[in-house]
């Protein structure tokens, strides 16, 4: 993207100093509106049980699913609740999926004394051949078997199954369907090249400083200091930068100070303090040149449960002075120049990765879009706020760009839907390991990775 436009003047700076070099004005942000209101929590009360969120989720997705079921299997099929099932009758049931997994870490097992077990170490995947799927609706539950891929699905998905109840009490599934892509949003994209830079996993505060030069190079490219004139003018088209989580590295999470004696830890600071200072400086450099949206991630100092609330302004005193800094929630939804962005910092995808046989982050991302829910595993294995009025993670409108942060590598795909939806799926790689960020062109919804590198002692590039 950059390269083609920039090539002509590529070698321009290998010359003696010339006259006053040009400065390019940054493209103005014409239409920005933050749509992540549903993800902001006001008063938080944790006195409710989590069952409500499932009830609300089912109630919210049921109409859509019924419609889909009718369109798929015929409008005359019987839609039944579990309590109305009759043996042998082909019908369609809409309900919540529950996957009974043996390896699933359970707090009850951990503290159960009679088992006398050591807590299970975290595994990359918790699936096992002996896992079972159970469909639940408001009142009952029933075991599923048949043409349904047990390994692939995860708890919390709302789906419609078509089949019949067997004599032994199980439900034989012939076919199933999800909510599929939500209705499309009108496209008001810009007519000229506008870029949005997506980066995640900056990983500041880690012990190794290899990614620091790359981070600095990233900042330099975006602020226009790096590169020849052609590249700088292209960089001026970057309308926004979105940092999708994990700004601090996992190393800052160590809580040794709790275990050690007070006299040993009195003078030590949490590692995250230094890391946040570094983050503040980097954000200051970025904010003075481009609007930035900062989403919190798994290791960032904000709440653990989804939806994560924005980082607090006082942690970033230098950068907060600029109006171009926006601290936003995770998941994040916004309209940028008529293009709807929706994305998370990757916790939902990595959680599904752990409990499903799907290995590819892009595949999982696509699957969540088809299932109509950002994070189906939310209250079960991923921390979540006990919603009771509505589930904000249900996808009601189809975004134009759907991204997830902190993926192992960069992947992108343009998905075309039946009703004319066009979604660009992007898995943003973890910057601290891959030194890669993504550049999205809003005009034609294409995405290009951009890699930075320095040189090491023995690295050949």
């Amino acid at each position, binding site marked *: 993207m*950059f*390269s083609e436009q*920039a*090539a002509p003047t*590529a070698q321009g*700076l*290998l*010359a*003696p*100093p*010339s006259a*006053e*070099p040009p*400065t*390019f*004005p*940054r493209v*103005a*942000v014409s239409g920005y509106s933050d749509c992540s209101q549903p993800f902001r929590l006001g008063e938080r009360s944790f006195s409710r049980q989590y069952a409500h969120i499932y009830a609300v989720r089912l109630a919210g997705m049921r109409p859509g699913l019924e419609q889909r079921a009718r369109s798929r299997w015929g409008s005359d099929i019987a839609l039944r609740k579990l309590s109305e099932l009759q043996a042998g009758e082909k019908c369609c049931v809409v309900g919540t999926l529950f996957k009974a997994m043996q390896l699933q870490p359970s707090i009850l097992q951990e503290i159960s004394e009679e088992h006398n077990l050591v807590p299970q170490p975290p595994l990359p995947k918790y699936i096992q051949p002996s896992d079972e799927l159970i469909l639940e609706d408001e009142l009952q539950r029933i075991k599923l078997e048949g043409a349904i891929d047990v390994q692939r699905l995860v708890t919390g998905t709302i789906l419609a199954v078509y089949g019949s109840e067997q004599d032994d009490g199980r439900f034989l599934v012939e076919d199933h369907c999800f909510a599929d892509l939500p209705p499309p949003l009108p496209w008001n994209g810009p007519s000229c090249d506008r870029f949005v830079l997506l980066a995640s996993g900056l990983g500041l505060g880690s012990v190794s*400083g290899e990614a*620091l*030069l790359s981070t*600095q190079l990233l900042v330099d*490219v975006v*602020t*226009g*200091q*790096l*590169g*020849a*004139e052609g*590249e*700088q003018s*292209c*960089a*001026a088209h970057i309308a926004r930068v979105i940092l999708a989580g994990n700004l601090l590295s996992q190393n800052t999470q160590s809580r040794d100070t709790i275990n050690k004696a007070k006299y040993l830890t009195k003078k030590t600071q949490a590692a995250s303090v230094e890391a946040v200072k570094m983050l503040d*400086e980097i954000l*200051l*450099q970025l*904010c003075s*040149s*481009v*609007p930035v949206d900062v989403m919190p991630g798994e290791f960032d100092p904000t709440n653990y449960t989804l939806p994560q609330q924005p980082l607090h302004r006082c942690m970033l*005193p*230098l950068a907060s*002075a*600029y*109006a*171009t800094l926006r601290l936003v929630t995770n998941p994040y939804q916004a309209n940028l120049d008529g293009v709807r962005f929706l994305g998370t910092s990757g916790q939902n995808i990595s959680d599904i990765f752990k409990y499903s046989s799907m290995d590819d982050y892009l595949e999982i991302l696509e699957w969540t879009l088809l299932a109509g829910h950002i994070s189906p595993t939310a209250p079960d294995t991923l921390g979540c706020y006990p919603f009771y009025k509505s589930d904000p993670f249900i996808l009601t409108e189809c975004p134009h760009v759907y991204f997830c942060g902190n993926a192992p*590598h960069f992947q992108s795909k343009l998905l075309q839907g039946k009703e004319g939806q066009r979604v660009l799926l992007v898995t943003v790689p973890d910057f601290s390991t891959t030194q890669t960020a993504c550049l999205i062109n809003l005009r034609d919804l294409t995405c*290009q*990775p*951009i*890699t930075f*590198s*320095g*040189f*090491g*002692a023995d690295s050949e*590039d």
Partner: protein
Amino acid sequence: VTYKWLSYTLGVHVNQAKQMLYDYVERKRKENSGAQLHVTYLVAGNLLQNGHVCHKVAVVREDKLEAMKSKLSTIASVHVYSIQKALLKDSSPLYNTDYDIVKTNLQHCSKFSAIRCAAAVPRPPPDAPRAPASAQSPQGQRDPDAAGTVNGHGPPAAKPPPQQHRGIMGMFAAKAAAKPQDAPKEAKAEAKEAPGVSAASSKPPIKNNIMNNFFGKAAMNKLKANSVPEQPKEEKQVVKPSVAVAEPESSPNTVAEKPGKKTESARIQQKDKKSKTKRADRSDDEEERDPENVKKKRKRIKQLQSDSSDEEDVPPSPTPEEERAPSPPPVPALKTELEPASTEVSSGGRKRKRKRVLKSKMFIDEEEGCMGKTG
């Protein structure tokens, strides 16, 4: 020497800095002066990687430049990144140079960049009326540090308190040689304490202990004598932020007591700021001060009696200026200047009280003065 370092040091556009570096390299090489220069370049372009076209930006050594250029299918830009005498093993010195120079120039880090963003204006500090629209309006370059300091503190504090805090924190900063960023943080912490502390009243004994800790033992006996009569009066004081207030020598303390309770604490802080600059030779000061203080006491008493009209007239001068006044003669001026600041806050009744107490104090002080001279 990286291009960014050059750009900030010389105050030129980054592109010019890059061109300058290139020019220098060319000239030096033509001269063949024998000094080996090692150059690193920045190369950017398209690269086919994992099946999709990836834009790569890399810093490479000169010897790897051609290899990198051949790898890239399209070259977007090439320019000199840095020049150094020694061969670099890895790129961390480059990063460190850039980091340091950016850190010292954090406020205008985009000044020499090639891209200007109209939307990136610093928000005005919350001292100004906090309208959301004000964020949009182009403000002069207010120090974002100041913004950071007072940021997040809802209670619209009057200017003197934050500046006094900063003065107090300035003292701590001088002690710890802290960076300016620490000062805002500490000022914040202290500012938070202040509202809470102002209600506290059991500070005097702590104050005395801290004061004693700060001074050498030689001075302690003298101070103890001075400080004892202070206690009953101090109990009625509204005590401003704790530790710093205890800092000053007690002779200024006794002197400061006279004009009044509230002004006293304010003045103590002023003294703190002044004494901050003289901290190194505090011990010498103590000896010098006593005779001066005696003089000062007399001076000020006279001044105070004729004070009320003067106080109103003298406008409250900004305290940072007072911080820099190093010599004792301006001290009485300091104090009178401070008085308006604090008397604005205090009610009229205070002045009356102050005068009453003054008269009784006068005797004590004169006694103390005698005691100080003999003891």
